[in-house]
């Protein structure tokens, strides 16, 4: 039995291993090496729809936020929202340029790392650049970015859709001060702090709207796998932040193609499945 084919298929895995050993003994070939952080399952998924990994690519930006930005105030903390927006866009532009320079058409499985400090915002993007097998290079402006895994990218393409890019929105808002009277009267009560609740709603609406505007600018019809992060800032407890990002998608074909999944009842016991604690 083999790892890739149904149980009844005749695959000589031991024979394949001997052939692999022979290839190893012969020394390196003249191939043009690729780098990828995909698992073999993901790479096979890509190949099944005619795509291949090209290169592991990264893009990052660190954007400053002016001093005193987080001091008490009212409404949105525009300078912080602007820093986040700029950092995301610059990191994305670098990722696109790097992907285009290696002849890729897109980047899948993008890992988004984000850190917000009082003085700056940092955005880091890492993923594997991919292209249709043997396709010619395209302009950086047309390279797509997606935080969908290669498996989800495959499923999306099979359903007749395509990813267009990552859309992000962020907003940081001051929670208004409570009056001294309100503080005193609420001190001994279980009470909702409506100033924080309202600030969170305000940040949420602005951030989600920005993300949706970014999706529309890409001519997308929707955003999938939206991730949201919200809460008070660790360095400014009177301010709350809301950030969201996801993959913008558009119907590639005339209409959605139903993938009609087959229902299966697995007889495997998950506890005894093959596993390796090393890299997959």
């Amino acid at each position, binding site marked *: 039995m083999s790892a890739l084919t149904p149980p009844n298929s005749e695959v000589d895995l031991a024979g394949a291993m*001997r052939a692999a050993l022979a290839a190893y003994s012969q020394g390196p070939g003249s191939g043009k*090496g690729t780098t990828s952080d995909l698992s073999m399952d993901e790479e096979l998924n890509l190949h099944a729809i005619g795509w291949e990994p090209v290169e592991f690519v990264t893009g990052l930006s*660190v954007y400053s*936020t002016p001093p005193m930005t987080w001091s008490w105030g009212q409404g949105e903390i525009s300078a912080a929202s602007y820093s986040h927006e700029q950092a995301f866009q610059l990191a994305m532009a670098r990722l696109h340029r790097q992907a285009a320079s290696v002849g890729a058409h897109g980047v899948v499985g993008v890992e988004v790392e984000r850190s917000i400090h009082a003085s700056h915002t940092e955005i880091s993007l890492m993923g594997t650049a991919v292209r249709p097998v043997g396709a010619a290079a395209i302009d950086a402006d047309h390279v797509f970015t997606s935080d969908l895994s290669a498996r989800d990218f495959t499923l999306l393409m099979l359903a007749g859709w395509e990813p267009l890019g990552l859309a992000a929105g962020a907003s940081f808002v001051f929670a208004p001060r409570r009056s001294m009277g309100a503080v005193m009267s609420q001190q001994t009560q279980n009470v909702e702090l409506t100033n924080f609740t309202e600030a969170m709603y305000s940040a949420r609406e602005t951030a989600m709207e920005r993300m949706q505007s970014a999706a529309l600018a890409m001519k997308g019809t929707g955003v999938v796998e939206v991730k949201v992060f919200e809460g008070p800032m660790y360095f400014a407890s009177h301010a709350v932040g809301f950030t969201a990002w996801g993959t913008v998608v558009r119907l590639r074909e005339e209409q959605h193609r139903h993938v009609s999944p087959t229902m299966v009842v697995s007889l495997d016991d998950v506890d005894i499945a093959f*596993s390796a604690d090393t890299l997959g």
Partner: protein
Amino acid sequence: MTSEPTDLPEAAERRMTSGAFTSGLSVADFAACLEMGLEPVGFAQGFCAMQWSPLGSSMSNAMSPYRSTTGGGYSEMFNCPHGFVSNDHRQWGQNYEQTWYESAWHTGFDAALQRMVEEATEAGAHGVVGVVDSQQVMGDGYLLEFHLSGTAVKIPGAPALQQAPFTTYLAGQRLAKVVEAGYAPVGVVATLSSVRMWPFCITEYQLHGSGLSMFATGVSTSEIDQVVRAKSYSRQIARDAAKHALHGDSLHGARVTTSERELGQGEIDYHTVIRGNRIRRFQDFKALPVPQPTVRLS
């Protein structure tokens, strides 16, 4: 099998050639290896403790944060636009690659890897699968211990290798998939880059809001160029080193870890480590049927 002399301890040679095998494989991975015709012959390990100099390659570095570029690595200067202000004002900054640290890291990793491979060779193995590597800081922070371990395997009846056994982080089903997809495991690849940033006045102000006082009004909100360049070069250097180690083969399952450590006076070390499996295609890719989506009922 190579006949070159090794620096294996005598006890290790005896142990590796004794009758009973040892293995770091789980039972499931052990079963999958047997399915591939791989027979475990021993649990191979390699260690190396490396020290590196905190002063770099020159004693003159102890006198100044500035590093000369004679090491041949990346180095870049950033000059203050304000002229002389005070002794505390950072009139210049520098990003530089810490080539001596990178060299110590690679020497330590490669030595531990080679020692693990020597043990496998001694046991007559064709490869080492399920490699696990770890590093631990020892003592005063300038000592690093490298430890690599994996299960040495052989293919009964296959001719002895003229070179060292292959190595791979993969084992079990994952290795089986790689082989069945037409790739041969070649070796584990691990590279590190280390870039240190000594911030000049603008960077110091943008990162910490200090160091500029009356000049701050002239600094606009912008990208912190020195940090971006230090981090970007750190990643690029590690990636270039990984590609250099491939010799035309491919890197699969790469894992990138980045870390930063703030030292005194605003200095920051940026490290990037890339690990992955070097693989070589031995048969043309056979197109798979389009995957059929399933819904698991449980």
